[in-house]
């Protein structure tokens, strides 16, 4: 319960961001479904976004002069936009792949196997 009385600092957000990041990486590495991989990507980006926002928040640190301020939020906006764009393109690729191979199993996409 002592946990709940203390204020939350940047570190807490960083930890959350790291957990999401790790989950996303594992999801990318483990999932055979291409859409599962995409979900992993989304998780990764979100973890990164949390970090940015945490760094840009004045409320989370004691010396707020060193917060990124709006920069953190701006960057995370850009990240969101890019994530959307990339998700769209990736989805298009996946659908194309599905149309051609009738499967979204990424293990089947091994024509570049050496």
């Amino acid at each position, binding site marked *: 319960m002592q946990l709940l009385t203390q204020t939350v600092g940047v570190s807490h957000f960083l930890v959350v961001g790291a957990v999401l990041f790790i989950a996303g990486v594992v999801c990318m590495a483990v999932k055979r479904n291409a*859409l*599962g991989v995409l979900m992993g990507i989304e998780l990764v980006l979100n973890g990164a976004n949390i970090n940015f926002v945490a760094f840009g928040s004045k409320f989370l640190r004691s010396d707020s002069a060193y917060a990124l301020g709006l920069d953190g939020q701006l960057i995370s906006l850009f990240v969101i936009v890019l994530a959307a764009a990339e998700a769209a393109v990736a989805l298009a690729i996946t659908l194309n792949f599905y149309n051609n191979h009738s499967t979204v199993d990424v293990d089947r996409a091994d024509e570049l196997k050496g």
Partner: protein
Amino acid sequence: MGPVNWHTFFFYLYALVACGFGVAVVISTNIVRMAMYLIVSLGATAGLFFLAGADFVGAMQLMIYVGGTLVLLIFGVMLTAQGPLISLRTSGGDWIVAMLLAGCLGALLIPAGLTVKSWNTGRPDVKEEVAQSGAQAVLVSADQKPPVPTAGDMPDVNEDGIPDKQPITAAPLGLGLLGARVDKLENVPAALRPGMSGYLLPFEVISVHLLVVLVGAAYLARSKRRAGNRS
């Protein structure tokens, strides 16, 4: 034990939801369920954004990310989830390797996050106000004197009395995108001034990027005469 810092409580709530459902995404085998879990996880992330004071970003997260990108993802899932493709299992060996990797990354990142001592706690004077009013944005007029801070130095209060507590970030964000950084007009230390420019260029680049993506995605996903043939 003192009064519950509701900021902290909600933080932990959203954090657990986000991390839990994120882990659930990893563990789940059903693609549809994965999509659901992801939505919830990202929603919780938006809550975290709000808690961090990035209200606009949080809103955008909900609108664009959850409402747009993930819906798109759901479309994709729906389109492709046929029969055996719904749950594709990976082998145990891959799981072990992935867990190892996760362990390594975790060992790397989580301690890294905790290294800076000054980050372990947040702003001391904010906690009561935040605890009382939750994560609501407080609209403060320009000529209203800010509450006098009780403890420590409050470097984010300018001479005009304009409080630094401007939970509404949309307008400054927009102006920042256009090149005017109104949030850093006077208080910028001389050492930090370089780099405090606007984000007009990235804004434009992003726009073009989106356009390109639009066109590309439309092309890539166009319907083909002969479905099933390699293009």
